[in-house]
């Protein structure tokens, strides 16, 4: 952690120098969660758990993260899972706006897992008391360090390394009541709809309506041009009797009705999609983050926009930190 802190300080100093002279986008590394966590832990450690992870990382460093030995830790999982699950409910019932509190309240809880873990094999001994103080520091100390920076915050960006981690974090953010937030994933991640509390998409309605429009339009076109000789807007149709079939014979219209319905349905789905996701869009604050390039590669991100009513520099960060991101940063808008 100390290295990270140093880095952060470096960043801060350099960026504040820059900030004075040239108003570029600045990124502030707020807190670095350890990188080596395994999915099991992210699942197990729900809230206010950096302590465990630090301990885990230390343990990992010592043991070189031998994958084979990690498997026994899987037995840890159920044990660790039960408790946080139990704790989650009280946390959710509490007013989520004050996220600091649950985090603080859970620290005692954080002590429990080590107490119970001994039955599970390896890492227990080093864990309990030694690492926790450093872990508690970041939330407490960092905020003051950043506040002096003047630029307007655009969003918080938290990076996760596994699907489990982001689904888990998304549930936390959803339960905290945020609305202007998003998950960014390299592919469509199953289960995130529920985790984000999204309502089902309505795009099918657009496609259906325009598909029907195409069907009707094709029928009317053929009827007006081939089956009547009345004039529409100066253009008259012509009653054509071809192949012994009467003008307006419906069976011969079916293929074109079908194709035209499909055509309009497909095009409306394309444009409906663009409209719903508001996509051709020139820029977005998330692109200011250099790490965000990996959102289309192999990392999973959660962004919470500053425009959200519940957004608060400290509370939001505390919430995100408690979800164990592998990286967390405050992306700022152009100061200019």
């Amino acid at each position: 952690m100390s290295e990270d802190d140093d880095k952060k300080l470096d960043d801060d100093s350099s960026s504040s120098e820059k900030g004075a002279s040239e108003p570029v986008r600045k990124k502030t590394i707020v807190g670095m969660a350890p990188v080596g966590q395994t999915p099991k832990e992210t699942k197990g450690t729900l809230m206010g758990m950096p302590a465990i992870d630090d301990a885990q990382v230390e343990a990992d460093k010592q043991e070189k993260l031998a994958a084979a030995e990690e498997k026994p830790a899987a037995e840890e999982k159920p044990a660790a899972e039960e408790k946080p699950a139990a704790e989650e409910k009280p946390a959710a019932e509490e007013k989520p706006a004050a996220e600091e509190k649950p985090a603080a309240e859970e620290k005692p809880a954080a002590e429990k897992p080590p107490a119970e873990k001994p039955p599970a094999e390896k890492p227990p001994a080093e864990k309990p008391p030694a690492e926790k103080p450093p872990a508690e520091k970041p939330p407490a100390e960092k905020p003051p360090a950043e506040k002096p920076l003047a630029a307007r915050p655009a969003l918080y960006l938290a990076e996760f390394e596994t699907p489990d981690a982001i689904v888990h974090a998304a549930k936390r953010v959803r339960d905290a009541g945020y609305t202007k937030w998003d998950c960014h994933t390299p592919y469509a991640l199953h289960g995130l709809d529920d985790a984000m509390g999204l309502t089902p998409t309505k795009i099918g309605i657009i496609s259906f309506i325009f598909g029907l429009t195409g069907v009707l339009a094709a029928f009317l076109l053929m009827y007006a041009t081939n089956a009547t000789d009345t004039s529409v807007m100066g253009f008259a149709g012509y009653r054509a009797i071809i192949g012994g079939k009467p003008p307006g014979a419906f069976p011969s219209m079916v293929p074109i009705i079908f194709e035209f319905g499909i055509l309009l349905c497909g095009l409306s789905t394309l444009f409906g999609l663009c409209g719903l996701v508001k996509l051709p869009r020139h820029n977005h604050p998330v692109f200011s983050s250099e790490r965000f390039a990996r959102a289309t590669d192999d990392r999973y991100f959660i962004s919470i926009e500053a425009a959200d009513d519940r957004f608060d520099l400290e509370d939001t960060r505390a919430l995100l930190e408690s979800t164990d991101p592998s990286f967390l940063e405050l992306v700022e808008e152009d100061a200019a």
Partner: protein
Amino acid sequence: MSDALPIDTLPIDDSVPIEDIGERHLMPADMTISEVTNLVAGVTERPAPRGWWILFIPAVMLAGLMFACLGYLVSAGTGVWGNNAPVYWAWDITNFVWWIGIGHAGTLISAILFLFRQKWRTSINRFAEAMTVFAVLCAAIFPALHTGRPWLDYYLFPIPNAMNVWPNFKSPLMWDVFAVNTYLTISVVFWYVGLIPDLATIRDRSTNLLRKRIYGFFALGWRGSHRHWQHYERAYLIFAAISTPLVLSVHSVVSFDFATSVIPGWHTTIFPPYFVTGAVFSGFALVMTLMLIVRAVFGMHRVVTLKHLDLMTKFMLATSMLVGYAYAMEFFVAWYSGNPYEWWHFYHTRIGLADSTGQRSPYFWAWLAMVSCNVGVPQIFWFKFARRSIPVMFVATLLINVGMWFERFVIIVLSIHRDYLPSAWGIFHPTLVDMGLYLGTMGFFLTLFLLFVRWLPMFAIAELKGILPGAHPSHLHDHHEPHEAPAGELSPAPAE
């Protein structure tokens, strides 16, 4: 092709039942998400390998030949083709049907296999969709020219005009106009929508500003947002759902061009399913031919594994049997209908038995070529060694495409060169322009295709990532657990 061989030694788990091959462990077990990105996006970032140039240069030359033939054809008129009474539809329409059919496999792979949740499609769908678009472009050239005065082709569209002349919507040729245009449009849209997230991946990897701008422009500002993915996935499903009947309708409509006539050999109700099956069959074969080449040239053996190829050969075997059934049923119906013209046509012109005057049809070899390539050759895929052997697959898929071209030739030219009146019989001789145009469209197709594999993500990056082990939250897979328990040890979820 030979350099493809040594790398095809990936472990193939034969103990897994077939439904599991379709569902799980498609990718090598140590494949990671970022490796997929690097493999696929990397192709667009490195200089083209030599094999690419070896294919590209001849392809461009052949494309040039196509444009030369087109220019000559338009300036001199369709008389430069060998078409003449009674064979007014010859290579041009044969090529049209052949190319359209090839395109169908692309839609089948991207849409129908998507609806059936065949996850192995993710390694071939982008490829096949691109092939669809280019094949339909090549196909569209022929009927557009076959009108004789292509500069008047706008008559085909219902454009209000001062003469009050409207298209005859009762004509199957008019249905073709709508079907092919719709098919081309929807295929392009489907392809492009699938490309958006992958273009964003390339954009985010680009270090060069020009690349960032160009890919960024076409990526529309995609940022992987799950609020977008949610709509996107549904839109993709809708495209798949409308493309499936569309692809079936397009070749059905193409077959109506023939089936609604009264020519013996054309006037039959089996044509729509028969054409669609044949289309899928030939398209799969061409996807595979190209896949084998590209796989070797760009070293994509880890994305397109032998498992994928194995599944594709089985698909070809199945469609080959369907096509064989259609061939047999044509004969049966010709006999069972009691129509003497129909039956005479089949035993005389198709299988080449001598008629009462002792004459043989000059074209019986075409029917033989068709049956042996389409029904005979694929039978080799009953054997496992053939489903695992790249050279066998390569030769077989080429032969299948030759056979499918002959199928269209048999249906079109053989049927009209001998109709009811012996005095109206004739024979067709292709001219150099016929041949040049056919070869030229191949070059044009290959040029577009090679440009595609060079500059666009040739595999669906985002979809491939979605099928890697561990790509989705673990609790979602819990209910699969008993199902995949035996294979569990084989892939310890390395993506995490």
